[in-house]
């Protein structure tokens, strides 16, 4: 099995993301691998352990994105590739998916490409499906379990978690799979993995090296603003007895149409 995992470097979930002077900033908060992508890495490693083969992790971004790649290497991925190009500074999900698809094709003979369900910074959640579309592969999104994977017959059966419930879907390999939290608990990097990752020389591919045909972004952010500040008013309801307090509270709730 040849497996690719696509990961993104994002601000830490604890970071306070705000808009300053029209730019999004998270101060000096650390950048981490997108938490959803850790599930994708874990899933890829589990499939590799079950069916042998190798796992390559790739990311589109600047030098900082090497941190995310090293995290995935420390978890157990065999290879890492950074795709970095000044022309990708304003890439939207379409451009990103074209670049990722080109990288997957350049790696060659890939059976499965895993993604997290979305990145916690952009929260768009369509890159996996778009990459599948560009590659012309089946798109199996929001996957909560891989119930069958047969490299010989090149088939895969997964469970998807959708609003209406669970769907069992079958597809042919090669396929793109985006995973959700239920799929498996991500492992911690091992010390051996950490040593390997810290010494890894990660190759950097440019768009030209990929030979990718990349569109202009179709989505841009002409204006960004902070959400309006919410005024929170606290009112302590008092009364002579619990029943009286409860009655006053119920009236307030009905009055404000909270319920």
């Amino acid at each position, binding site marked *: 099995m040849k497996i690719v995992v696509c990961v993104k470097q994002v601000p830490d979930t604890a970071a306070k993301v705000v808009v300053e002077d029209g730019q999004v900033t998270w101060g000096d908060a650390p950048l981490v691998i997108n938490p959803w992508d850790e599930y994708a890495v874990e899933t890829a490693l589990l499939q590799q352990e079950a069916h042998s083969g190798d796992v390559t992790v790739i990311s589109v971004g600047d030098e900082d994105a090497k941190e995310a790649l090293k*995290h995935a290497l420390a978890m157990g991925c065999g290879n890492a590739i950074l795709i970095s190009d000044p022309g990708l500074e304003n890439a939207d999900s379409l451009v990103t998916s074209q670049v990722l698809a080109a990288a997957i094709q350049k790696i060659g003979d890939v059976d499965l490409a895993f993604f997290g369900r979305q990145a916690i910074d952009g929260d768009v959640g369509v890159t996996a499906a778009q990459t599948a579309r560009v590659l012309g592969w089946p798109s199996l999104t929001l996957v909560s379990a891989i119930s069958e994977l047969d490299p010989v017959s090149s088939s895969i059966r997964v469970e998807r978690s959708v609003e209406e419930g669970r769907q069992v879907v079958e597809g042919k390999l090669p396929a793109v799979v985006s995973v959700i939290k239920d799929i498996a608990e991500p492992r*911690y990097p*091992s*010390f*051996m993995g950490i*040593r390997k990752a*810290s010494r890894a020389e990660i190759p950097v591919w440019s768009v030209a090296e990929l030979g990718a045909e990349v569109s202009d972004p179709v989505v841009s952010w002409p204006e960004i603003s902070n959400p309006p500040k919410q005024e929170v008013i606290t009112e302590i309801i008092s009364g002579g007895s619990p029943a009286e307090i409860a009655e006053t509270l119920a009236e307030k709730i009905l009055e404000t149409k909270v319920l």
Partner: protein
Amino acid sequence: MDFALTDEHRMVQQMVKGFAQKEVSPVIKEYDRKQAMAPFILPRMAELGILGICLPVRYGGQGMDYIALGLACEELEAVDSTLRVVMSVHMGLNSMALLQWGTEEQKERFLAPQARGEKIACFGLTEPGAGSDVAAILSTAKRDGDIYIINGEKMWISLATKADHALIVARTDLDAADPHDGLSAFMVELNRDGVTSGDIHGKLGVRAGSTGWIAFQDVEIPAENRIGEEGEGFKIAMSSLDNGRYTVAAGATGLIRASLEASLRYAQERKAFGREVGKFQLVQQKIAHMVQSYEAAKLLYLRAGWMKNQGIRNTCETSLAKWFATDASFDAASEAIQIHGAYGYSDEYDVERYLRNAKGAVIYEGTSEIHQLIQAGYALEYRDNVPLRCELPAFDDDIWQKEQ
């Protein structure tokens, strides 16, 4: 001079932090109240390799350096002191002593299973009547042909009821002119006939850990279990403390950080007199002191770790790091409670646990008073570093990574 941590160090920090925060933090209050150690802690730390973090790969360790050990201790104690205590006794006081003083055969027998986390190790120096006064040790080890017969009791032993191996110090020469010279060190398998142990309850802190006693009643051990030569027990114990105190210093630094982070969160949430309490200058003063303590404590323990990596004797520097960080962690936790007001006085918040846990480290592995004597002794040149027959080996990346 390079103050930057390597990628490797930062990844170790993240990995250990992830374990402590995701797996231990959600349940620590429950076990602290129960005064019991969560049963998953030791197997999980073994599985993740934390129990062998800075030991060479050929002995079953993970091949990291001594700074990685310190960073791990900081992250562990930022969640709970009991996690760091595991590293102090299993790694600092026992396994690193084996690395320093053990023969190859002893390393194979004892160190390798400890590094892999298959066996848990503890350290038995303190007795009911001998704490700081090590020369007052009464436990005896009497040579009888190819064996030693151990009798005595060890007290305030971390992991007493959890450990498989104990490195203990006992008297082999009752007539030594200097009582320090009559002590020897031994590895004792705690499943031997005549060994009994129990936990001590009712402690102020480290309640989610195991602290207890171990008694030896005519316990026979092979002579090959003696670590070092007869009469080297005091030196071995003191060199073990150089390593144990390092882990305590690093851990206490994590406790300062935890108090600081809790205080920052609370000071920005809690409002009084119409504004968040962080806006008040007296609260800011407390926070400033915590920042100062954290940064200084961190630099002190990292210097000690760097010296260990270089193979430079660090008794004085480690003592200073331990003394400063533990005293500062107690102060930081106390001030964190003050910032939290009445809420800090209840176990709804973590800071009261930080204070209770901080007090222990001001006492064990050399009280603050002992460390002050050590520091003054070095400054006045009453003390000097006497070369040891076996020094802690300097970290060597190639040697540490070798499989054989």
